[in-house]
């Protein structure tokens, strides 16, 4: 979870700055936060009261930008580009990185074609350089590139900000984990018990055999 440790301090900085600002200067902080190379989490900033107050003002588009970076993808931006301010190159890069995290939420194997389409990348070299330099070396994902199968196998992906509707499915997954783990523990205990029993039986059987050998020896 080092990505969380790395950005914890940054989040704190931006939150404390946002709390004391209004209007245009607050909008600048939002642009700065969504451009920062090491920040990939925006919920905390979103929950600052003064940020929510941007709603309905001339700066509400920056609130939309922040929501986009918290939960959206590059495709979302493109389909709403008309109502959002133009993004700077650093913001575009970040939104594409966040898009990879969103894709990794649903699948552990990401086809190149899907990635190239989602990230507006035209060739494999450019896609792989992006995944290597901007994702794996940035520490937000870990995985392996498979050129023959043209896919990216994700081993680890940093978590993105959660939308409220995601909590339910998370709880569901955790409950399943819990049940599976308990069942696993139970079956391991049964196996241990079975092994012990078999061990005892084996010992008893071996003892009977030895006694019978002794008897035969005596008889002889």
């Amino acid at each position, binding site marked *: 979870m080092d990505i969380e440790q790395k950005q914890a301090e940054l989040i704190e900085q931006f939150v404390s700055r946002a709390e004391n600002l209004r209007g245009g200067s607050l909008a600048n902080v939002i642009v700065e936060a969504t451009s920062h190379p090491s920040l990939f989490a925006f919920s905390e900033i979103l929950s600052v009261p003064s940020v929510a107050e941007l709603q309905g003002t001339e700066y509400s588009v920056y609130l939309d930008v922040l929501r986009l970076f918290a939960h959206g993808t590059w495709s979302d931006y493109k389909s709403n580009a008309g109502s959002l301010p133009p993004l700077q190159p650093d913001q575009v890069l970040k939104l594409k990185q966040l898009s990879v995290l969103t894709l990794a939420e649903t699948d552990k194997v990401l086809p190149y074609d899907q990635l190239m389409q989602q990230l507006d990348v035209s060739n494999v070299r450019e896609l792989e350089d992006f995944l290597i330099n901007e994702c794996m070396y940035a520490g937000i994902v870990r995985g392996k590139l498979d050129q023959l199968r043209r896919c990216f196998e994700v081993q*680890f992906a940093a978590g993105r900000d959660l939308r409220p509707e995601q909590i339910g499915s998370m709880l569901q997954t955790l409950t399943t984990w819990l049940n599976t783990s308990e069942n696993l523990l139970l079956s391991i205990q049964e196996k241990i018990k079975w092994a012990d029993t078999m061990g005892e039986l084996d010992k008893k059987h071996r003892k009977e055999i030895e006694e019978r050998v002794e008897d035969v020896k005596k008889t002889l």
Partner: protein
Amino acid sequence: EEQVLVIREKLAELYESEQQWSKAAQMLSGIDLDAGIRMLDETYKLSKCVQIARLYLEDDDAVNAEVFINKASFLVSNSPHEVLSLQYKVCYARILDLKRKFLEAALRYYDISQIEKRQIEDELIDEEALEQALSAAVTCTILAAAGPQRSRVLATLYKDERCSKLKIYPILQKVYLERILRKPEIDAFSEELKPHQVTNIVLTFQILFSRMKSNFILQQKALLPDNFTVLDRAMIEHNLLSASKLYTNISFEELGTLLGIAPQKAEKIASRMICEDRMRGSIDQVEAVIHFEDVTEELQQWDHQIVSLCQALNDVLDGMAKKGL
């Protein structure tokens, strides 16, 4: 003997002032340090051996220099003169470096860079010289062939916070983190070893040699039997190992583009590394693809993944505990 010795030293001095290093060394080599009428004292012998070695090294003649450094090695341990022993250390590091025993050279440069005293006898040691020794240690480690010992030295250097101030640090960081070095970075590193660096890599200890030619530039330019320079080879091998951490398989075409070299070159070095068991994998020449294999077996990888999952779960629980949840 006495007069001959004086004349030789005088002639050597003249040759040295004309920068005819090997001639000066040969002149001094003619002094019979072992036999002769009067027994020369150990310190005199040691200083001559080191001086002759240094002169040969000025002409990058590691073979002759090593002869005299080996003689000096019998004398240096008993010598009370720290100046001489430091000069001996630098010569020895240079000889190892010239002989491309980069890892041994790196360890000795690193040892030199850790000198604590800033004054030895009547000589001052300046920070810049120590920094050059540290930089030389990093450069040699990077040029050394990949392997567990090199990884250990890389880790030591990476954790030495003095290194973070070196110009070469970004390269050290990427090499340590096993990250691919792109062509511009390699060219920049190569530039670092160019002539202007000769003076900079000079170990400008006043007690050491007034001018010591770095042989990195020779190393870097020296062509190996397979027509690669030392630097080329070190960088390509490093990048291949870094790529093997990122790819399950890759075509040589793409690999060549990624590493900034011809696909045939990539294939040639990859095949040698696989044969030398310095990289796990197989080459499909029909498809022109290299398949990288993980050093760890699948089941072990599974274990590692489960371990890191449990670790991550622990982190979450610790985080919750910290926040009183």
